[in-house]
């Protein structure tokens, strides 16, 4: 009787192979091989990194972090963002229902392509997003070569 109910002829079966491959993707050992400085989900802050021909752009999402409590360092090819985020100011005796937001001290380091010039770094903070622009070394930027007449 249960054999009849437990049949694969359900709409579910159509999506199952796809679901399984997504799960395998997530759980396979290869998915665990990550960068030395990668962080688990939910870490603070999350970071996006992009590149143009002449600079590396790092975007760190730091909502509620004031400029004074934020520190950005470049040492060699290592960019370190650290600081403190305060918990919301509450009176005593409040009831908490959810506390998902990180509070406290944080440090996050990112390995940059070693083509970056540590002396040409600009950092700006706006609406809780820290943008760090790191110029690539001159010799790494694309150049136009002049063709000389022989």
């Amino acid at each position, binding site marked *: 009787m249960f054999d009849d109910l437990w049949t694969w002829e359900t709409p579910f079966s159509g999506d199952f192979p796809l679901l399984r491959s997504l799960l395998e993707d997530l759980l396979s050992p290869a998915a665990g091989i990550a960068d030395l400085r990668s962080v688990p989900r939910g870490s603070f802050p999350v*970071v*996006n990194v992009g590149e143009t021909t002449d600079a590396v752009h790092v975007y760190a*999402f730091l909502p509620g972090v004031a400029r004074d409590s934020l520190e950005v360092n470049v040492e060699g090819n290592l960019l370190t963002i650290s600081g403190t985020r305060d918990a919301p100011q509450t009176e005593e005796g409040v009831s908490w229902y959810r506390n*998902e*937001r990180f509070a406290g001290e944080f440090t996050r380091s990112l390995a940059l392509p070693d083509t970056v010039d540590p002396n040409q770094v600009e950092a700006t903070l706006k*609406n809780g997003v820290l943008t760090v622009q790191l110029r690539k070394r001159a010799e790494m930027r694309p150049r136009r070569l002049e063709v000389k007449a022989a």
Partner: protein
Amino acid sequence: MAEIMNVGSRSPANQDSAQGMTARRILPATDIWEDAEAVMLSVDMPGVGKDELSVEVADHTLTLGGRIQVDLPDTLSARFAELRGSSYERQIALGEGIDTDKIEAHIRDGVVTVRLPKTAATRRRRIEIKTH
């Protein structure tokens, strides 16, 4: 189902397509607490300014939406992205005891703070004990 697959898919084609980006709504981290006068919310929406924030109340549900506005160079190519998406959305059921006309919201440094004052009937009151 199509929408779920769009969000879950890790193929680069989907991430980069404009459609994939608009379909993706990030669930922002939220703190909720209650004091004697009000229920308070703190919601992380980095990259959202005052003009990109929307706060709506309908059917005892508060909806917070924010579009991420970060200036990116045109020629930027992504190396990796831990935050994927272009907007935030979070809905919170308010229940009956909130005075929806007096809700206040503000945003600072990418954090939305919402104050939901309680109606007089649901406020905690201190009752004076009389002596005869």
